[in-house]
């Protein structure tokens, strides 16, 4: 029965796409209705303890369950998708809107499938479907060939990560004969190393961690609503979710913690810097996404997957909100350049909502995102005080770019164009802002205890110095961000800083070191295939023809002037060959002769 949670939006997507629905209200209402039912199904499934089993064959068995961690994620996906889909129906271009809404529903269904998966194949199915949806969504505007190129870039890069899951599945089956998550714990030795490495690789690629982060920038070519969902509750979230879901198994490997922390911290710091230098509103948010998932990787690596999960939830709410408001500002400015924006005066309601999101991004108490961030500092501190410092630094960067974003996009600029936001857009951003505010409840000790009970693990108490240090860092960050926004609004738009703003030159390196060499290799192979492999065949063919011609000339001379000579010659050779016929070989010769006759007829008729 639990399958229904994922299958319902998947089938609904197909039906919506097959229907002639084209108008905004109809599409928006239908899409939201589907998501609402999905949400109710998930709640019901959680309360009733639904599970699901299905088999293709004896070895290929699938299973889905809801655990205390996965149920949180399963609820988050439709909750975030609801306002995003409503916004999409109101905001995006009417042309292709039906396709967009269907794909968003498909996206949600595929994500839910991977969330409830309890075996590697179900996970892999959802995982790759999410990737395919993101391809279609990023390339949604089909007239733009560059968008299709970006979609391909994103798909291929994340699929490289998917190979990790393939390898993991292969290793597990080899040793246990099943794919179930329950079997993963029984692995040992090098197989366990390969398993964990494969999962970490997949997760890092999906969550836009280094060195895969550049695909998230290219993904910005998709419509804003797509970015909002892709960065918050689907696709990118899948990587961190996978680590959170499988943390008990992964943590058995002693190197998993340091590896996850290493990847996460590097991405958090590099992403923070990249975001701060970005003058493009959506790319700023995209780099920030990588950075925040990096922090979640740190928390999981330090042994606190529940904290990472809570931050994932808080991040989903504020990041979806910020993308939606970036989309509204982008439409007014007809550009996503921060220097073209500044709609605080003309769009006051959206500005307030955006400010709530930005404060959450910056980690300002009493917003819930601030508590989850402080918890991540504490988690890091349990690993090493230095790590706590590093996370504080990442927090400072986060505060700085949050400030730069909100001040530039919705600051008190002199921009007085007659800007408007549509009612549905306002409702979508408003409800996300309200949810972000409601998460402030996380600061209440009672709620914290309840959550600790739910996850069956208490939250660590932060030492005072960490809280103070962290808040100081946030303050410094906010000030720095404000300075940049006021004094250097175009920072990173040109010059050396512009290349730094593009993931510190990483995409360039990937293109030169991997992309181009592979294409060159393909060209070389094609040339070799044509000239050498087929060339050899052609030479054999030419040799055959030459021999035939020489032989024919000889035959010709013989046959010339002897019209019946040929006949006699054939008869003679027939007689000759008959002499050789002894026993069974006769039949085989007959076979060959029949084949030769067929060949001769064909060559003759086919001319």
């Amino acid at each position, binding site marked *: 029965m639990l399958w229904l949670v994922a299958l319902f939006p998947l089938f609904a997507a197909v039906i919506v796409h097959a229907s002639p629905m084209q108008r905004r209200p109809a599409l928006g209402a239908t899409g939201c209705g589907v998501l609402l039912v999905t949400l109710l199904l998930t709640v019901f499934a959680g309360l009733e303890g639904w599970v699901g089993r299905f088999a293709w064959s004896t070895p290929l068995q699938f299973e889905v369950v809801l655990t205390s961690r996965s149920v949180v994620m399963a609820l988050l996906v439709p909750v975030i998708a609801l306002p995003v889909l409503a916004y999409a129906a109101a905001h995006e271009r009417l042309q292709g809107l039906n396709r967009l809404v269907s794909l968003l529903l498909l996206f949600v269904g595929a994500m839910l499938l991977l969330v409830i998966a309890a075996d590697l194949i179900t996970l892999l199915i959802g995982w790759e479907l999410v990737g395919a949806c993101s391809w279609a969504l990023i390339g949604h505007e*089909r007239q733009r060939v560059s968008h299709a190129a970006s979609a391909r870039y994103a798909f291929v890069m994340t699929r490289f990560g998917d190979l990790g899951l393939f390898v993991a599945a292969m290793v597990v089956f080899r040793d246990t004969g099943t794919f179930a998550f329950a079997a993963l714990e029984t692995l040992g030795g090098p197989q366990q190393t390969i398993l964990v490495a494969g999962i970490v690789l997949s997760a890092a690629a999906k969550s836009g961690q280094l060195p895969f982060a550049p695909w998230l920038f290219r993904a910005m070519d998709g419509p804003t609503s797509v970015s909002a969902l892709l960065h918050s509750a689907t696709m990118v979230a899948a990587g961190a979710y996978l680590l959170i879901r499988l943390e008990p198994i992964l943590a058995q490997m002693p190197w998993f913690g340091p590896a996850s922390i290493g990847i996460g911290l590097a991405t958090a710091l590099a992403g923070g810097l990249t975001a701060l230098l970005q003058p493009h509103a959506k790319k700023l948010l995209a780099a920030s996404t990588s950075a925040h998932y990096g922090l979640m990787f740190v928390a999981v690596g330090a042994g606190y997957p529940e904290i990472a999960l809570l931050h994932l939830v808080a991040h989903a709410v504020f990041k979806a909100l910020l993308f939606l408001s970036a989309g509204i500002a982008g439409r007014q400015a007809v550009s996503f350049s921060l220097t073209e924006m500044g709609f605080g005066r003309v769009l006051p309601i959206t500005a307030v909502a955006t400010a709530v999101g930005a404060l959450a991004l910056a980690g300002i108490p009493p917003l819930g995102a601030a508590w989850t961030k402080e918890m991540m500092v504490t988690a890091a501190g349990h690993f090493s005080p230095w790590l706590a410092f590093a996370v504080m630094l990442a927090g400072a960067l986060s505060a700085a770019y949050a400030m730069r974003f909100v001040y530039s996009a919705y600051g008190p600029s002199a921009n007085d164009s007659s800007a408007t936001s549509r009612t549905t857009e306002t409702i979508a951003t408003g409800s996300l802002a309200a949810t972000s505010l409601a998460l402030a409840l996380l600061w209440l000790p009672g709620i914290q205890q309840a959550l600790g009970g739910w996850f069956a693990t208490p939250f660590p108490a932060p030492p005072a110095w960490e809280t103070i240090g962290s808040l100081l860092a946030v303050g410094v960050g906010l000030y720095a961000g404000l300075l940049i926004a006021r004094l250097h609004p175009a920072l990173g738009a040109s010059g050396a800083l512009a290349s730094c703003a593009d993931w510190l030159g990483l995409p360039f390196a990937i293109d030169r070191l991997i992309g181009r060499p592979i294409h060159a290799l393909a060209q070389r192979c094609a040339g070799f295939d044509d000239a050498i492999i087929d060339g050899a065949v052609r030479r054999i063919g030419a040799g055959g023809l030459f021999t035939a011609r020489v032989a024919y000339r000889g035959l010709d001379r013989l046959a010339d002037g002897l019209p019946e000579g040929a006949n006699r010659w054939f008869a003679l050779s027939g007689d000759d060959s008959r002499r050789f016929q002894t026993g069974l070989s006769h039949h085989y010769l007959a076979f060959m002769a029949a084949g030769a006759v*067929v060949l001769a007829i064909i060559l003759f008729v086919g001319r």
Partner: protein
Amino acid sequence: MLTATILIPLLGALAFSFLRLNEPAYRWLACGVGSAPLLLLAAVWLGFDTSTDAPAFQYVVDYPWIPALGIGWRMGVDGIALVVATMSALLFVAAIAWPAETRGRAREYYAWFLFLEAVSLGVFLTLDLALFYVFFDLSLVGLFFLIGRWGHGDAERAAIKFFVYTFAGSLAILLAIIGLVLATDPLTFDMRTLIAEQALAGMDLRATLVLVGFVVGFGIKTPFVPLHTWLPPAHVNAPGPASAVLAGVLLKMGAYGLIRIPYSMLSETFARYAFALAVLAVISILWGALVSMAQRDLKRRIAYTSVNHMGYVLLGIAAAATIGGEQAARQMALTGATVEMVAHGLITGALFLICGAFWQRTGDYDLEQYGGLSQVAPNLTRFTVLASFASLGLPGLAGFVAELQIFVGAFSVYPWLAAIALLGILITAALFLQMLQQLFFGELPADRKSFGDLARVEIGVLAILALLIVVIGIYPNWLLTPISSATALLTAGF
């Protein structure tokens, strides 16, 4: 029943010589006659016993023909033959129904198609090695004419290259058959006896030579690198439906032949060289994918992905044959290889039919000449996207069911080779997405404004193939059950 499956289209082809009808009538008549084998095979499928104590070959027919040589009209199917033959029959109906440019020779066109259907099904359904060889060769004849007469570009040259090259492979097979059969006493071409006797077991040099004959012959047909270069020109110049049958059905004869003959009849020798074949498979996978990525010609690109996909099939077969692997894993590899044959038939069949649609509209396969077609041909876009994603192995579609099992099964036997082969699905992803981008995205070139979307019949044909691709991707149980009944026996021997 199986005899009728072959004779109905064969007699239909003959009857066409005496009929004088207009072109649509030929097509619908051919469609009707061509569907008969599909219906018969569907009935066979429904009656096929998949329980563990069922005989390996069912619906057996055995009439003596040339008793002195042990040749007989022997028909029968196991699970593998059944699914591959049924897929082939379906693809033939699709190819016949596809609106074709018959150049005023509709009668001959459809007659050759029916002839080709009869002999192709014969290859999969016969249990007699001599008949197998005859059908195998006659299939070349049928396709030779379809390419040579109704092809475009340098069609005759491509047809002759196709014929001579693959005929050379046939000769290798003939020699190998002779070498194999002569070891039986009393002489017989009965496959069941040959499988049971393992006549060449223990004869090292001779068994190896016979194996080489089969591998070269079937390797050309499948094709494996480096024996594949006949395939791209044959595809490029063939009419769309003939291309679909070439990729969907004729290539399967190579892989099917490997399983049916050397794998089953020379188990010991085949197992000894399984690793070499697996290496060859990985080379085919990577080479096919890489070379495909560099092709600008739509059809050449898809032709090379066939090399890639048939490499997966070979990898599955080689892994299944290896001594020492877990039986469950080897069975999974062989099941995967068979599913890949079916999936590749449907997917690549659909892709080549789509290529035919391109050629009929523009006479151009150059990818660079296209762009933005999603604006004028939304249905074509849908089907092409679906088929491309199926071909790159997206879960939920048929290719994934096959490739997953091949990889997982092969990994248990050859971990490194399977891991390297995984790169193949990454390259195919890149090359198909690049192709889709080039065809359907971006600005529509001015001279493509009049590009027409798919017609009703085309939509109908592609919809059936697409539906099967999706159904196999989501619920393949009905397909896996008969296949597993055969692969369980085929992998139990070691």
